[in-house]
């Protein structure tokens, strides 16, 4: 589960995106790796593009050092661009994405969208 800690899911450039994530009902020793990322992606008629603004991968000792019974807090300063956008051929959207890789090969993915900037209406 991902929870944005801002009052609104809309952020301006240089704002700090603060969020927390946790996984429940999964034994801690069954987690092989965790990836946390803040990404933008394009959707629409063209081939999808993906940009990674923030990426953190926890494995081994750093994974063992985390207490997964409490939410993990992350703070990420946001960039100037690209701003969230809804056009006719393309849409640019931002999201926080967390992937849990379990020892049995299972991959759990959760993502939480948010807006960067206020140009979100269709032009």
């Amino acid at each position, binding site marked *: 589960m991902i929870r944005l800690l801002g009052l609104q899911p809309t952020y301006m450039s240089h704002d700090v995106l603060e969020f927390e994530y946790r996984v429940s009902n999964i034994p801690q020793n069954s987690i092989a790796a965790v990836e946390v990322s803040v990404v933008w992606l394009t959707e629409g*008629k063209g081939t999808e593009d993906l940009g990674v603004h923030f990426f953190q991968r926890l494995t081994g000792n750093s994974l063992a050092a985390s207490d997964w019974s409490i939410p993990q807090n992350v703070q990420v300063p946001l960039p*100037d661009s690209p701003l969230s956008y809804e056009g006719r*051929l393309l849409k640019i959207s931002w999201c926080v994405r967390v992937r849990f890789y379990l020892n049995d090969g299972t991959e759990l993915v959760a993502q939480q969208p948010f807006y960067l900037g206020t140009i979100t209406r269709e032009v």
Partner: protein
Amino acid sequence: MSGWWFVGSLGEALFFASFFLIGVMCFTTIVGWQFLSPTTQVVRIGYGFWLLTIVSAAFTVMGAVGFWYRVLKVATSDEHREIIAKHGLVSRPNKPRNKVLLPPMVPLLTPFTDSPGAKLAYRLPGEWPGTGALISIGLFAMAWNAMIAVFCVFAIGGLFRGEIQYRLLILLIPGIYIGLRSGQLFFRSYVREIGIGSTTVEIEDLPLVPGRTYKLLLVQYGRLVIKKLSIRLVCEEESTYHFGTDVRTEREVVRLQNILELGRSRIDWGRPLELECQVSIPSDAMHSFQSIHNAIHWKIIVEGEANRWPSYSRSFPVIVYPLVRIKPVSQPS
């Protein structure tokens, strides 16, 4: 995503791994045999040897690239692959950076600011949509006519020797016709491109920022009577996608703003038409954006209709920054 979804990718990885192994075995056999035991070699150095060497090397490279691509696709997430592509497999410590960071995914400003204007700060670079077609027609006309000229020399030489090569002469008739028509098409397009005269656009400042107004200067050269001239600010989305085996690009204008419209006017050599106007960037404008397959472009479009000439359209791209970014202090070299 769980279970056996990666079995297909694993099969592809094994396929490319076998490619790699076959390539390495063939390569080492052919090259090793050549150098270690030249007397018993089967393939002597020559076309066959080099062909086998190149084919086995191609197998090796193709297998290695395909294998690692598949393995990375299975073993890493989209985000992780993006990070590896950006920073490499081994993460390097971040070096302190002195230069001002440019807004991500916005095209570089340098190509737009390296040409100062005569009256305003910058002269905008132009995009001529017809230039590519003109060059293509010119190259085709040149190559075709050169080929026809060579055949003509053969045919005329034969005539002088008293040998009339009927088949060559029959082939030359449509060949000469195509050569003449392509030459005519090229010169017609060339005269159309240069006859109207060049258009320059200067702007007060760059990059453009939403909510601000900028002075613009249009200079139209040539000797012609303009029936109608318009300047527009255009925002265009561009998407590239695969359709079967084709790669297609689609463009759509999503915002169009009239800056200036001019009626009948006369331009002479040495007395170009100069028009000063102002362009306002809407406060809710999206910034310029460029990713691998998608883009948002802003352009100033000059469209004109002139007596005795076909209508023309000239495009001058500009860069719009996000509202927060006012102006970079320096550009990266």
